[in-house]
């Protein structure tokens, strides 16, 4: 089993994810330049950063590179695809996930720890959590304000596409716990099949106790477990 971490010009969380997958989870993982082939991988992570300098819109240019067609095919085949921060922006810009990510309500780069509530455990990335569990990890972004209009949001709710919400430490969705103005405190979304996840918080920065939390590790472990189970059945 092998995972790919996609590198675009301006990706900068690639090595962090690589360390967690290779050294902590213990799964073989390659750093893959966006011009290289990815068809033989069991899953893909699009890491954070500032691909193409966030020109035009965050994630807009990377989303139109040919490798995204290959990633779409992997996603259609049921392989797990995880986009973190800029990776999430790339996934919404490519249309693999619903909604859009806009400038934070308070328009500055925001870097802090947040509480997240796990809204859905039947995805490729959240099977190791309990529904409603409150977990901690950091955010670090300026364009993380998740937007979907009322109609789109209703459809996302009925399809259960929201995976994580920003909450207080007791798990309540309150305005004070919303760091960026996201609609319905949305911090992470999945596609309807649950094998594509985009999230603004950084699980790779919360995957070892020494970092202050290892809640993020279970996202990677769930993903590897899911990919392993998919191999057994295919």
């Amino acid at each position, binding site marked *: 089993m092998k995972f790919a971490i996609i590198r675009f010009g301006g990706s900068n969380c690639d090595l962090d994810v690589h360390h967690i997958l290779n050294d902590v989870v213990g799964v073989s993982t390659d750093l893959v330049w966006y011009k290289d082939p990815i068809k033989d991988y069991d899953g893909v992570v699009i890491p954070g950063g500032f691909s193409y300098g966030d020109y*035009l*819109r965050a994630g*807009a240019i990377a989303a*139109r590179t040919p490798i995204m067609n290959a990633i779409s095919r992997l996603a259609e085949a049921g392989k797990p695809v995880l986009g973190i921060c800029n990776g999430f922006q790339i996934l*919404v*810009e490519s249309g693999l996930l619903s*909604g*859009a990510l*806009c*400038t*934070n*309500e*308070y*328009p500055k780069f925001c870097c802090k720890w947040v509480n997240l509530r796990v809204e859905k455990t039947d995805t490729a990335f959240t099977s190791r959590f309990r529904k409603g569990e409150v977990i901690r990890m950091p955010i670090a972004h300026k364009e993380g*304000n998740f*937007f*979907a*209009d009322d109609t*789109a949001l209703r459809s996302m709710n009925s399809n259960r596409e929201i995976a994580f919400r920003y909450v207080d430490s007791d798990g309540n969705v309150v305005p004070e716990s919303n760091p960026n*103005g996201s609609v319905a405190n949305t911090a992470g979304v999945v596609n309807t099949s649950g094998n594509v996840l985009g999230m603004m918080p950084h699980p790779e920065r919360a995957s070892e106790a020494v970092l202050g939390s290892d809640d993020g590790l279970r996202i990677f472990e769930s993903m590897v477990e899911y990919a392993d189970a998919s191999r057994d059945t295919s």
Partner: protein
Amino acid sequence: MKYRAEITTELKPGMLDPEGATIQRALVHLGYNVTSVGTAKKLLIELEADGIDDARGMLDEMCKKMLANPVIHNYSIEVQ
């Protein structure tokens, strides 16, 4: 034929525009009675096309494929 175009993308009405809101407040601090500021992005494009309709068609396609995000943007195209 060579054409010059200006493409303007702006947030749909009612969407939060934090940059515009910040500029609006700063203008009020300077003593101007400004009630609203919206920001937009203008792209200046030069392209080769068979005619103005062909140019307009390609520019519209560019907006749909990449330059605008249909979830949040309206766009307009001017060609000459």
